[in-house]
């Protein structure tokens, strides 16, 4: 063996040591409840957004500028809007004026904001005054909304432009928006590394009320671009950035309270940012679920502890995570095209899950297999074992962008392969088909 080969070997070995092995699942998956999948096809480009409207419908939108309304029970297309000529960047579902209709607001990089009536399947309004590419939307106060991109705009209920806040000359657009209090009058924007707080003031001029966007405060910068911004409770919000830091902020004083998950060498090899925070979700107003690099972690914001984590959950970065089956399982989706289901190891998995499900517990309790009382008393954070891979949902052939839980209707995912996939339980579907056959097909009088 030549010297060169030896060196090469050594390098290889080092690489292997660095790399934690990604768990694989073999054989039958008794805990995986998603045994039937439906491919919902309509999009012709990457599907980036999934939004649940009600228990029967969800909406998907993507880079092809098309919005599709799906029936989640029957898994069929209800309607579609060829909404925009450029990718749709954000979606917002609000109640209509009469509260009986669902309105959907879409923003796109074609500089349009469009308002749709989902029930009637038509465009209610086309707003063109935004002027620049729309990046995010946020409902504020009552029936108003803010759109952001290069500038901030405040829109009234009927789509009238109420105010514009010009931003300073800066390189990046506002990419994230959250509101930080119940009244929705104060919101935080994320623009590259910087977080800024704005509020909406109503000025009473004679009889007319006019609204104004005011900048309240600029917050200390993150080390890298902010990737996730989430309200935790009335008093708290969290932000996560590319370098892996998760900061907890007070919603009252707007000061950083706690820094979670700080990494020394955050850039990693070839600037890959292996610990970047892609997504943060909040549970019970105090637990944070974060997608960090190829893994995920669960934090408690009250005790500021890491409850459990999985460093290598996927082969590629985790794009989103959510509890499914009422917290019995945690679903993570990744750029590697898979959706993985995580839970606690048990000797008799199927049985255990069924028993656990029957108890009136919250998702976090179910997932950690412990009730809150016990949780508060437990001291050591390593009390909880690493979650175990219980199932893998393979169906996408590109990166999975979003997953949403639809309760008994299963889970919906969308991805880079232009597909929306509905993951359902085949037993439930069989029951449903029996019902449909009995009620509709075999009983002609019901046929409309």
């Amino acid at each position, binding site marked *: 063996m030549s010297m060169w080969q030896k060196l090469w070997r050594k390098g290889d070995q080092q690489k292997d040591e660095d790399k934690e092995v990604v768990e694989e699942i073999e*054989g*039958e*998956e*008794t805990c*995986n*409840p*998603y*045994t*039937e*999948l*439906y*491919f*919902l*096809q309509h999009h012709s480009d990457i599907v980036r957004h999934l939004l649940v409207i009600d228990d029967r419908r969800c909406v998907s939108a993507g880079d092809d500028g098309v919005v599709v309304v799906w*029936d989640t029970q*029957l*898994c*069929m*297309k209800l309607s579609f809007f060829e909404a925009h000529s450029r990718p749709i960047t954000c979606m917002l579902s609000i109640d209509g004026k009469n509260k009986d209709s669902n309105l959907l607001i879409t923003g796109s990089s074609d500089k349009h904001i469009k308002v749709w009536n989902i029930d009637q399947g038509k465009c209610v309004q086309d707003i063109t005054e935004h002027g620049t590419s729309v990046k995010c939307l946020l409902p504020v106060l009552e029936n108003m909304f803010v759109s952001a991109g290069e500038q901030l705009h405040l829109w009234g209920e009927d789509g009238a432009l109420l105010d514009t806040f010009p931003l300073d000359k800066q390189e990046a657009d506002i990419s994230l928006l959250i509101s930080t209090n119940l009244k929705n009058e104060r919101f935080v924007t994320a623009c590259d590394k910087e977080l800024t707080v704005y509020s909406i003031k109503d000025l009473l001029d004679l009889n007319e009320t006019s609204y104004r966007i005011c900048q309240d405060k600029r917050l200390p910068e993150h080390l890298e671009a902010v990737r996730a911004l989430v309200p935790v409770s009335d008093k708290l919000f969290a932000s996560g950035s590319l370098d892996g830091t998760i900061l907890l902020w007070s919603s009252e004083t707007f000061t950083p309270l706690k820094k979670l998950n700080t990494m020394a060498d955050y850039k990693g090899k070839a600037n890959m940012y292996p610990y970047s925070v892609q997504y943060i979700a909040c549970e019970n107003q105090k637990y944070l679920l974060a997608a960090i690099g190829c893994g995920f972690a669960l934090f408690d914001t009250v005790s500021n502890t890491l409850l459990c984590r999985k460093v290598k959950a996927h082969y590629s970065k985790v794009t989103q995570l959510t509890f499914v*089956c*009422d917290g*019995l399982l945690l679903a993570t989706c990744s750029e590697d*095209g898979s959706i993985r289901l995580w839970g606690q190891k048990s000797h008799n998995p*199927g049985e255990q*899950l*069924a028993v656990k*499900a*029957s108890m009136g517990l919250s998702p976090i309790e179910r997932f950690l297999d412990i009730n809150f009382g016990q949780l508060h008393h437990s001291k050591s954070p390593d009390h909880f074992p690493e979650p175990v891979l219980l*199932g*893998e*949902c*393979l*169906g*996408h*052939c590109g990166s999975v962008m979003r997953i949403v839980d639809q*309760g*008994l209707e*299963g889970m919906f995912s969308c991805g880079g*392969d232009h*597909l929306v996939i*509905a993951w359902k*339980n*085949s*037993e*439930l*579907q*069989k*029951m*449903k*088909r*029996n*019902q*449909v*056959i*009995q009620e*509709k*097909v*075999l009983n002609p009088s019901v*046929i*409309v």
Partner: protein
Amino acid sequence: MMDLNMFGADLPYNMYIQEEESKVNDGWNFDLEDYLAPHSQVPHPWNRQTAGESHLDMDFILVAEFSELEGPREVLTIPRGGSSNFNITDFSVRIMSLDHQTTTKQGFHLIEDSQVTFSEIKDSVFAFVHHFALYDRHARGYVRPFAISYITPDSRKLLQFYEEISQQMKKVVRYLKYGNKLVFKNSLEMHLMDLHYTKAEMLLRMRSRKSSHQVSDEDVCYKNLRTLEANITETQNVLHTIKLSLVDKKLEHRFARLEEKAKIETPRVKSDSWSLQEWEEIEATYSVSSVSGSYDGSSLSDNTTGWTLFPDTRYYRPKTVKISSGRQFDIHLQGLHELCSWGHREGMQKLRHLYQFFKRDMAVLQVESNDKTFMDPGPSALYFGEDCIGVNLLTGVDKKCMGCHCLQADIPGLLFNKCSSIESLSFKSAASSFRSVNDDDAESMKSAISATGSPIVNFGLYNENDVPNTFELEKDNIDLYSNNEFIRHLTFKIQQLDIDISKDEPMGPIENAEDRTTIDNVKKFVESFGDGNKERSLDDVEKLEEGNGAISEMVVSTSTLLGEDFEERSSGTSDHEDFTCECDLSDVETEGMRDRLHTLTAENVGQLEYEKEAKNEKEAGSITIAPETEKTSVLAQSIKNESMLERDSEGMTSYDLIRLNIENLIPVDFDSPEQESTLFPSNPDNNSPDADNLACGFGILHIMTKYASIKHVIYSILIGRSVIVVGTPDLEGEVKNIVNALKIFLTSYHRNHKSFIPWTKCLPSLYKMTDLKLVGVCRPERKPFDRFIPSAIKKLCTVFDVKRREIFCPVYQGYYLSLLDNRVRNYKMEEMLTTLIKSIMVEISSKAFIYFHSFCIGPAGVGRQDYKFLQQQSSSFQRRVSNFMAKIGVHDSDAHIIEFLCETIKQQLIQDHFQTRASVSHMPERPLATHNDLCCQMMKC
């Protein structure tokens, strides 16, 4: 030059004529007795037409045009000449005078079609007229108005079948118009290039002339240039409008395919005698000067491909055009076939079908449309493969006749598939239903008056065209197995007729077996039927092996082995040339007939061998088989019945005899490759296209014997798990054969969506697996197997690697397929195995029937919302299912099969429900089961 021109422009036309010609020639060209040959015209008892009263004595189709040169004129009629005592010219004037172009828009625009009915009660002439416009660069306003009319003396026909006629007319016109648009677009593009070229040339000339300073000349030049500029803009605008409307890519591909096909086939210049009147007309006026415009000689002589619907404009050499502000109206206008190219061919073909279909009497049409509902099996029927209906779950029995499928089962599959095109509009749909011809009409034909059902009805009514079609196949030597199958079906039919065999029929000549065609044999066989003794042994065998292929039955009844030979056979020699047959008849008097029967079967085998020979060009050895078999059959006469009795006493069951006999008649030695080709006549190496046309399930015996673990693959198919058969390019034939054989288990064998692909170069996307259940995939040699199959596919589909003989699939543990697997060894005849498979499928289906009615739409149908959680609901349902399955005696893996079959039915019912509900425009998606609960294993086979 002229020839080239002709070939180019009229390529589509020639193609059509060729087809016509072949149709003319086929017929019952062998000598049948008059009464046996079906009549071309079956007189029906409800003829309402009273001759003399009407001017019109038959229906016909008239295509008329409003010519800008001559005014309204007829273009063609179907049938040629139209009705004898009917003034076509007068009629065309009348229909063309209905001006349908009511738009007032300025400039060029696309003209909508219109349909009107036209009645002349006095003469009792009723017409359905479809007005449309074709585009021609040389015509006034680029538009040539045309009208197709269906003219009939029966007004009720138009009323009753208005929808259907209207639909079909639209389809015909769709072909014509789209072909025309493509032609028009090409013509404009070339013209535009000409104009640009002329402009450039003119500018060049002007520049060179500048020195001469001739003011007046320059003036003319500018004027010309302006005209030219205007022409260019106009042409561009028109081209833009046309291009926007060219959106039917499907049709475009179809035309492209036709053209491709035509290019491959060596063009034969036809004599003009075949042509229609329009053809003659064109021919008469055809001259080089008349084909002015862009398709003149210069362009053609440069371009070897000639005139085509999809020209490559890069090779077009533009030329100067004469500049004139006005349009010239004295030039020859193109004929319909020139205007529409391939659209004309397709359209006219369709129009002919339309005519053939609707020309029949009202009563016939009505009966057919009523019968259609019976022929169309309901959504509650469970299919396996293309011809097996496991069970009808009897939902909606009140709406549809449940017995319909029985009828279908009796119809010989081949005839059903290859029904004549002439008699029925639905020909295409019928053919494509099982052969998946790329015909976009397959779906739309549902609305036509005779969907799937009519071929059968037609067969009864006018079968003169049906059978010859089959013979035509044989003549073309397409597939000796279809030939074989044909005989099987024919003889099967004969047997069904319960025909007695006459004993005093003289023996037919049997010496020159090779010279005789099998048809002759059949004929002879048919002739020999008269009155006489019913053959007992035949009946016995029938009871034994009911439902099996006819050949086996014939063989069984005619010849059995000698005792000594039997010994030899059992010791392993399977050389079929040296066996001797004997007659197992107790009745010596029927010997003549016996021999006859044998001759037939022996000759079939001989014929098979012979044709195989012709195809594969092998050594001359096996040609001798046929006469050899003949001799043995003669020998058979002389042997007495004692040996037969002896064997019976030895405890040899007649079943074993049958089996052994078949073993000898049809050599099925799978170990030797040269014998293998008997089962697979299409040599796998020569990329046989025939493999696609083989009957469903063909080769199943071979596959099941060759691959040990195939039952697990079958299990995968039966639980709805997609099966991917992967093979390297050299295994194409084998992969195709596997797919073809396993097709028999497909439950989703549907005419509208293809549930299998015999061979494809790239792996289909996962989302297509909801429809595709059986796919043969080519794996490039250099790509390793594990990298070729993505993990998602491996998880959701069963993968069968033919090269390494490995299967990755859920393991089957159950009764039915093990039973099948165990019995395979007992079968040497594929017919029997397929029958066994079908019977097993029927048995499984019967369990599914019970499950469906007693469980699914029984107690399990009641929605249970008492559990909040998904897992709880799921596991409680699972428990209930397994309890019920145990009650009906289904265990382990079989329960999954039955569950899947039931789900298939449920999905079919729901789909049907949604289809019939017009208010819903979208359909629910079909699910793909992941089978997470089943453990997959890698198995060797």
